[in-house]
């Protein structure tokens, strides 16, 4: 059965992408333009999931979402072993790529342009919306593409917080592992082909964004 893991993966990445975009843009912009106390700590913490083993990230998420966590004890929300937990895991592991790309893209925008916009009466929101983001959008989109590819491929942390329940939390990477265990190579081959194509497509898009310059920027 190809459809359930594929649709689940798409649903997970769709929800995760909303958080990746929101948090990544916010944190990336903040880190690029503000020098607040502890900014190095914040950016280091955000980058940790990039290098930690998936089991450590998964364990951290178990502590954050599971028994004894504020979410569970105070609000009674239990996300463990749901597809939402898979979306959270995908967000956490993919976020560093988005934050770093956004930070670099925004840092490359000449601050003089933003200063000019302010002297012309622009509010901070207008500066961001009409000057900074339009000038940085290629780098930001490239980071977004990388994050999507990383999120789609998320395996370890997802296994720990969402499990591998067919039809409910079993995303494509987990379904491939499961199919190989059951020696269902037909399914494994099909899913591997889909995964690889999606990843290839996303990376190709990222390369294309980085390779072609906006013709109006020199």
């Amino acid at each position, binding site marked *: 059965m190809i459809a359930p893991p594929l649709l689940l993966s798409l649903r997970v990445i769709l929800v995760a992408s909303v958080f990746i975009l929101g948090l990544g843009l916010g944190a990336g912009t903040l880190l690029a333009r503000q020098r607040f106390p502890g900014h190095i700590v914040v950016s280091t913490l955000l980058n940790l999931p990039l290098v930690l083993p998936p089991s450590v990230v998964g364990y951290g998420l178990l502590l954050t979402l599971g028994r004894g966590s504020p979410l569970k004890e105070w609000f009674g929300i239990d996300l463990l072993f749901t597809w939402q937990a898979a979306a959270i895991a995908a967000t956490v592991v993919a976020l560093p790529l988005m934050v770093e790309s956004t930070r670099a893209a925004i840092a490359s925008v000449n601050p003089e342009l933003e200063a000019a*916009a*302010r*002297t012309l*009466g622009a509010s901070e929101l207008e500066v961001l919306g009409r000057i900074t983001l*339009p000038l940085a959008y290629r780098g930001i989109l490239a980071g977004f593409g990388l994050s999507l590819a990383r999120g789609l491929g998320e395996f370890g942390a997802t296994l720990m917080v969402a499990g591998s329940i067919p039809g409910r939390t079993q995303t494509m990477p987990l379904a491939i592992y499961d199919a190989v265990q059951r020696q269902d190579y037909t399914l494994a081959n099909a899913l591997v082909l889909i995964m690889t194509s999606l990843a290839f497509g996303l990376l190709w898009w990222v390369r294309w964004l980085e390779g072609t310059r906006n013709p109006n*920027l*020199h």
Partner: protein
Amino acid sequence: MPRDLIVDIQKQRPQFTLEVAFRSDHEPLGLLGTSGSGKSMTLRCIAGIETPTQGRIVLNGRVLFDSALGINLPSRERKVGYLFQHYALFPHLTVAQNIAYGLRGRSKAAIHRQVAEQLQQVQLIGFDHRYPHQLSGGQQQRVALARALAPNPELLLLDEPFSALDAHLRSELEKQLLKTLSRYPGLTLFVSHNLEEAYRVCQRLLVLADGKVVAEGPKQTIFDHPGTLSLAQLTGCRNLSPLQRQSNHTLAALDWGCILQTLEPVRLTHTHIGIRAHRLTFPDQATQPNTFPAWVAWTSETPHRLSLYLKLGQPPSDHEDYHLQAEVFKDRWAEMNGRPFPWLVHLDPAQLLLLEGVSRG
């Protein structure tokens, strides 16, 4: 309502302290100084791009910044136009969109009319839909000027507006700028490190060195009576020598090896004597005081003028052996060239600059 700008600010940086106070009225004020003297920093503080450590900025009676009162208006509320040194045009917006950027809250038709008017003022009709990278440097500068002027700012700040341009474009754009400024009703500050440029554009000058104001006043006064050694250097005086006072109107110019009569009394605080290169004259006979025999050690040409490096009293030993620099027009040089040495050079007592070695203020 007063039509003026009052600035009295301090800005501390790790390696640098800016401390300027001045007032400017409807006449363009030129901020002159070498790079690193604090000119641009001053403009950035006025525009709200940088925040002074303390002080006050008041524009037409409106407080833009006051550290004591805790007032610090954001850039967008200051009504201060800024022409950046490298223009800072928005590369992803067209010429028309760039100019319209500061025209928010008006109807589409009004914005369109304003943009057309500005384009006409800077002689760029028909360039609406070009992007900045499709324009020459001079055209970019004019778009930046139009963009800064479009929202009718109360104050226009010009930060070295010609420095990124080729020499042949400068004089043309300078003329255009002067024309535009003559129609602009607001106040203008013009920053430059080029003294001739500042002299042409502005009536009054403010001279900065190391973050401090070393002189302020009508430009002619500053050029004719620099008063201090550093200001004489900043305003391009090339002949300077330490002096030894001999009497009220007599001194020895130590580097030049001559005794000079002065019109202005020599005070004990005067440490240096100077004379501008174009003020030296070459009479046929030694009838006036301060006339000395001179030999030419070296010459260098500019398109219309010639710089002569002169040695007083005896022939020079080599090209580096000279006391004074003189500047003469080429036709005058044609008359003089070929005369036997020594020539006579005259240092007019009325043109001698008596200078104090330490800066005042």
